[in-house]
């Protein structure tokens, strides 16, 4: 049985964003719309489309993730589900009480004490007083505010406010729990407690809708998810597939060597490509497979002993692979104005993700650059995901080197 259902939901914010207007601008807007209607023109839709015909369904008791880059429309979707803002098109359906946790210190009133806030917020969420009373001590304990419970919240630190907000929302037994980025604030210990609490809610059968950039938390908490970008549904399904798609999406981009603004040195790189050991051009490899990087260079004159260096990175600082003529001394004796350089690596012991290929050319004595460091190509290593709870995220963000290994555990 479904618990949350988005049916072809769209949300358009007026005038390029959420903001309030003046009567004057409103009247002008009204006159413009009326004019258009009188001339029988199609009403021109203005404003930002934050969600564009998105549909998904969350089963009862399921934990579901919304993934996407900044500005994709994730928070908008959550606000619709929390009934905070109204969809422009389509229907949002829900079964049960929605507990929403958005932004820091959600719904905490700063003039009131912690105690008063628990009662106020609880009743705003529509929770019976008896239930609030039953849960009161648990909330205070979880938020770690025992000593400050009768202090006005305005004297709380932002961390305390956040803890209070989360504790109230997470303990008052919502049927559908909506969490937006809340875990990115607070210290590590509290974050861990929140993830634990959410895990418990999931085990108890609460439907959880989760938005976070903490991908390993997403992977361990959620069963399924949807990835959206610019308001559109990109993919949805089992969380590991969606995460894998998202990670690929984030890292992939084309390299345009021709318009590269760094490509202005004495030596310029004209083409660069990756090949399998059989010579076929390709950009996807399995761990342990071999690769050949082919580059063509151009220079205004013939060069003696140009030293080429090629490195590979995984998007983070520091080279993972480095093959350099200034080290091995294998620079060619003499090259013409156009020359090709092939680097053959017999085996890539790398884990799944996108790798960038960088190149640099130094003078014969290694004292000056003929070509500055430039990203010339990239390729992906794909491996089947493991069976562990963080398989996708750890493989993508953990250490880059793949080694053959086995565990041997005794007690």
């Amino acid at each position, binding site marked *: 049985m479904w618990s949350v259902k988005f049916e072809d939901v769209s949300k358009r914010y007026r005038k390029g964003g959420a903001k309030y207007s003046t009567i004057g601008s409103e009247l002008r807007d009204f006159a413009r719309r009326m004019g258009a209607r009188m001339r029988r023109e199609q009403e021109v839709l203005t404003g930002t489309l934050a969600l564009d015909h998105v549909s998904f369904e969350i089963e009862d008791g399921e934990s579901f993730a919304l993934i996407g880059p900044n500005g994709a429309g994730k928070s908008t979707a959550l606000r619709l589900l929390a009934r905070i803002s109204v969809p422009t098109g389509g229907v949002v359906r829900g079964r*049960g009480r929605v507990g929403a946790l958005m932004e820091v210190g959600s719904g905490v009133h700063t*003039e009131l004490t912690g105690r008063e806030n628990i009662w106020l917020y609880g*009743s705003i969420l529509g929770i019976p007083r008896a239930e609030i009373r039953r849960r009161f001590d648990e909330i205070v304990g979880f938020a770690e505010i025992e000593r400050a419970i009768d202090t006005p919240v305005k004297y709380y630190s932002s961390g305390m406010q956040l803890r209070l907000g989360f504790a109230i929302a997470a303990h008052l037994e919502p049927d559908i729990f909506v969490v937006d980025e809340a875990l990115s604030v607070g210290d590590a210990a509290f974050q861990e407690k929140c993830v634990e609490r959410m895990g418990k809610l999931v085990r108890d059968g609460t439907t959880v809708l989760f938005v976070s950039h903490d991908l390993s938390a997403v992977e361990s908490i959620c069963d399924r998810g949807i990835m959206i970008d610019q308001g559109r549904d990109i993919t949805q399904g089992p969380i590991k597939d969606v995460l894998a798609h998202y990670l690929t999406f984030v890292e992939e981009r084309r390299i345009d060597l021709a318009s590269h603004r760094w490509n202005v040195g004495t030596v310029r790189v004209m083409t660069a490509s990756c090949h399998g050991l059989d010579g076929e051009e390709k950009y996807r490899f399995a761990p342990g497979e071999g690769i050949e990087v082919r580059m063509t260079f151009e220079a205004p004159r013939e060069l003696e002993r140009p030293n080429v260096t090629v490195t590979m990175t995984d998007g983070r600082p520091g080279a993972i692979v480095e093959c350099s003529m200034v080290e091995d001394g294998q620079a060619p004796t003499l090259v013409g104005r156009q020359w090709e350089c092939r680097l053959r690596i017999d085996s890539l012991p790398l884990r799944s993700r996108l790798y960038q290929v960088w190149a640099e050319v130094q003078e014969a004595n290694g004292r000056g650059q003929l070509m500055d460091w430039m990203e010339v190509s990239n390729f992906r290593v794909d491996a089947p995901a493991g069976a562990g709870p963080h398989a996708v995220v750890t493989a993508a963000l953990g250490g880059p080197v793949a080694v053959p290994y086995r565990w041997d555990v005794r007690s």
Partner: protein
Amino acid sequence: MTTATHAHPEEFAFDGSRRISYRRVLREVVAYRECIWSFAIRSLRVRYKQAILGVAWAVVQPLAFLTVFVLVFGGVAGIKGGQGVSYAAFALSALVPWQFVSSGISNGGDALIQDAGLLRKVYFPREAPVLGAVGSYIPDFAIGLILLLIAAPITGAHIGWHLVFVPLLFVAIIIPTLAIAVPIAAFALHYRDFKYALPFAVQVGLFASPVAYPITQIGHSWRWLYALVNPVAGMLEGFRHVLALGVSPDWGLLGLSTLSSTVLLLLGFRIFKKLEREFADIV
């Protein structure tokens, strides 16, 4: 959830339809009565928490107004209470309910701006803070009423069995208060102009209502129109009859004002519900 309370979870559908059902509004208000109650308690707490005089403000305000009225209208302008009642008794009997109306409108009209942070983050019926803010002035009204009764021997007000009509009159005066506060709250969120115009409008309202002067100042044949156009006039006059003159309310005027304020209230909720759809996007 396995607990009994969640065995039949409420199902909701949230879409772009523009239909407004008064039945649904009423059902939600009833369902969220504890939420409205909390908003009222909160307004009360926040209002008096950091004030040294605290609840004494509920007494000071009508007394200050009374002093001014007695000096200006009773003294300078020479308005008489009439029917054997002092001007002080006469003015106070309408000032106390007027205080409720004006505070209710000012604070109810401002309630959504005050709670903009909540609007952005939590779902609840959007009228709850407005209803709570208006409701939070009920204790002030009660205190004012007690003050009036204590002062009756001094001011010379005629108080009799007609006091039994006070609850009825109070229920009646809540209608125009909400009828104005509810749509104003929504407008003020959309256009901040209202926020600045509101205190001014409330001041004008004081002089447009029979508070400082008796309704008898208005020609007999025009009185019914006055009670229709100014939806608090009938109630204020009723309070005056009961709390100063010691007679029954003028049922005709009260009926007219109740009628027009009920129409206003329905209209006000309609406007509110229509504007409500964009609250979270504009705050």
